[in-house]
C-alpha cells in the first residue's frame, strides 16, 4: 500500500458533457486500476485557481468513467505522479494516471458523479480530504464502471486556469 500524489502544475480544463470523449491534456486527472483486482482509494483533492484577470466559474466533477482510457496512458506537460514517501517500493502493476491516451479516451459516467469540486478559478481554492479509509472514493479493477475515475470540467461556466493535485492509494 502506497500513497501517491498526482499533481498538475497549471491547466485550463475544457468543459465536457457526460459520456463524451475527453481530449488529451484538457482535464486535470484520471486514475485507473493497474490490474483487474487492484483497489485504489482517493484521499485528497485540491484545486487552486490561477486565472489572472476575470471571473472564471469552473464546475469541476470527480466522477467514475463509463469508458476507460486505454493503451499507452501518460502524463502531460506539467503533470507528475510521485510517491508521498521516498521509500515507497514500485508496484508490479502501478495504477494508470495522466491525461493522455493513445487509444480510447475517458468518458465521464452520467450516473457515477462522486464529488462536485466547483470553484471560481479567479482566486478560488477547493480542498477536500478524507479522514478515514472508509470515507475515500474507491476504484476497483481497471474497467468500467468501477475501475476508473476522472476529474474534469462539466459544461457551463467559464473554465479558467487551475493547478491541482490528487492523492491516491493503491492497495
Amino acid at each position, binding site marked *: 500500500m502506497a500513497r501517491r500524489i498526482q499533481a498538475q502544475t497549471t491547466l485550463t480544463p475544457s468543459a465536457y458533457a457526460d459520456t463524451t470523449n475527453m481530449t488529451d491534456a484538457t482535464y486535470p486527472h484520471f486514475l485507473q486500476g493497474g490490474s483487474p483486482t487492484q483497489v485504489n482509494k482517493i484521499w485528497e483533492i485540491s484545486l487552486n485557481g490561477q486565472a489572472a484577470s476575470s471571473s472564471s466559474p469552473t464546475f469541476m466533477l470527480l466522477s467514475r468513467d463509463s469508458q476507460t482510457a486505454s493503451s499507452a496512458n501518460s502524463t502531460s506537460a506539467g503533470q507528475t505522479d510521485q510517491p508521498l514517501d521516498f521509500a515507497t517500493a514500485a508496484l508490479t502493476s502501478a495504477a494508470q494516471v495522466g491525461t493522455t491516451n493513445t487509444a480510447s479516451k475517458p468518458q465521464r459516467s452520467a450516473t457515477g458523479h462522486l464529488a462536485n469540486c466547483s*470553484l471560481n478559478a479567479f482566486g478560488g481554492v477547493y480542498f477536500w480530504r478524507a479522514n478515514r479509509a472508509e470515507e475515500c472514493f474507491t476504484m476497483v479493477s481497471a474497467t468500467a464502471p468501477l475501475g476508473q475515475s476522472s476529474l474534469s470540467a462539466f459544461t457551463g461556466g467559464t473554465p479558467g486556469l487551475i493547478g491541482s493535485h490528487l492523492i491516491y492509494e493503491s492497495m
Partner: protein
Amino acid sequence: MFSKREAEGYLLVDHTDSPGISAEQAASVRSHLVVPGGTKLETATYNCTNCERMIILNPLRTRERYYCQKCDGYHCDDCALITKLTGVCKTMKQVIEELLARMAKAI
C-alpha cells in the same frame, strides 16, 4: 469512545478573494455548491456507503439524514429512497468484495 464525527471528511471552498460562485451560476449547472464572492465554506462531508457520492453536510438542513442500521452508515437521499422502498442496503464495500471474489474464482 468512537464518534461518527471522527469519520467525517473535510471540505474547504475559499472564495474570500474571488468573485465566487453565485446561486444563479450554481443553479445553471444544477449544482448546490454555492460559495459567493468574499465568503468561505468550511464544512464536514461524508460519503454515502452505497454509492460513495460525497455528501456536503448542510448545517441548515432540517430533514433527518438517513442512517442505515444495516451498514451502520449514512446514505445519500437517492440511496436512502431505494433502501426505504426495497429494504435492501448494498454497500460499495460489498460490491467490491463480490467483484474481487468473482475475479478470484475466475483465475
